[in-house]
């Protein structure tokens, strides 16, 4: 771990600044999602007009999208491993697959939002509508940013570098790791959302 810092130049803490910065950002993002989730929870059951959660939720579909996001985290780990091992084909494959899984998740979200709107749940319909869309929409935006980030890493890997005479470059593993941390965080937030927003509705 100290070696990681040394390979990237001196830092005051002994840890690479980029990674420390990403963790600080993720800590703040916890608070961001925390307040949105708190709002959702405090409004739960207080909507005075429908549609209500169980009228619109289709948890089977949401389960599939949850699996997709979960597996994308695993793929991201493999992408980072490939970057560390300096193996370009696996790096491109796993980075691309992670982004693809993210896009699949997003398309499930788009489908779900469309379905809800057709059922009559809009942003301004009720406190359920507003808190739900803002919470899951914010998460979706985070996923979209992650997808763009990963695709940019993928595109970058088609450049030239002395490391690969036949063409191609692999980003610094630290950069891939930092992108990975963001991606895992987005997955972790969804783990919480899925349980608290969707599953809990079927229990209580």
């Amino acid at each position, binding site marked *: 771990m100290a070696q990681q810092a040394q390979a990237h130049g001196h830092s005051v803490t002994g840890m690479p600044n980029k990674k420390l910065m990403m963790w600080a950002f993720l800590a703040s993002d*916890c608070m961001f999602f925390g307040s949105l989730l708190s709002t959702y929870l405090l409004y739960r059951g207080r*909507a*005075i007009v429908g549609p209500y959660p169980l009228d619109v939720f289709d948890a089977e579909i949401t389960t599939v999208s949850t699996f997709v996001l979960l597996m994308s985290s*695993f793929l991201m780990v493999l992408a980072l491993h490939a970057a560390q091992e300096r193996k370009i084909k696996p790096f491109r494959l796993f980075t691309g697959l992670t982004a693809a899984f993210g896009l699949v998740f997003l398309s499930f979200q788009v489908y779900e939002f469309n379905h809800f709107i057709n059922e009559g749940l809009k942003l301004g319909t009720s406190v359920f509508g507003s808190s739900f869309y803002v919470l899951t929409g914010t998460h979706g935006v985070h996923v979209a940013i992650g997808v763009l980030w990963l695709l940019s890493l993928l595109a970058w890997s088609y450049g030239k570098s002395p490391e690969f005479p036949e063409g191609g470059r692999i980003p610094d593993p630290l950069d891939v790791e930092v992108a990975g941390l963001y991606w895992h965080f987005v*997955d972790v937030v969804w783990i919480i959302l899925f349980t608290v927003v969707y*599953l*809990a509705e079927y*229990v209580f």
Partner: protein
Amino acid sequence: MSSDTHAAEHSGASVRTYSWVAVFLAIVTAVEVVVLFVDVSAWKTLVLWSLYIIMAVKFAYVAAYFMHLLYDDKWYTILFNIGLVIALGTYVALRLMIDPIDGLPGSKYRSVESVEVFRGEEAARAYAIELGLETAVAAEAPVPAAADTESPGEQLADAQVAAAAAAVDEAPTPAAGGDPEAGARVFTQLGCGSCHVVADLPGAVGTIGPKLDGLAAIAGQRVPGQDADAYLRESIADPNAFVVDGYMKVMPPMRGAMSDQQFEDLIAFLKTL
């Protein structure tokens, strides 16, 4: 940047470990999803808490392995935990403020209306009695005819619809003269005190709307050509027709939330202020 440096940097789990973690996460998620298909209403609380614990475990595994916290400098973990603790603390603080839990801080400062929304009518009436706003010989209440399976929000909506329908269906003959004491109860039950101050009503401390002490004297002078009685009635049925200077147009129409008799009682009460 030789590959040695990078291999040395990468301490910690192997791909095998990550694979097992991924399998574990997938299996655990599959187990969770069972609640979607099985009726767990007999063990609601147990299942809910199990789901939360499972969620925390999944979170921990992703953070520890995929995000590498288990193998990295402990300061990353500390930093992240600071964010988590503040996030959790925010929820707890909000919850205690807005939907207090009996016995915990904040539970003494609920309004009767919030108790009705969050705990139901019975609890609200008991609380109002406790506060001295009602006598045990209880007065009327809005009409919930809700089945048990409805959420509180649905029940409240039903009650409002039923009350509004009742108001519409009745012939427009005035109800019996209003009883100010019953009107005070209506005032409290509907939570008017959350926006309006009334000196004699504990809990009527809201400053979003004008103070109501002295209302009887001034009601007839607010809108030219409108006498006190008409002004009071309009304030409840169509509050945004006239808003006192300096206040926002945020009062919801309240006529539909009460029966004709309750409305008369409320007007009678307001005239005593």
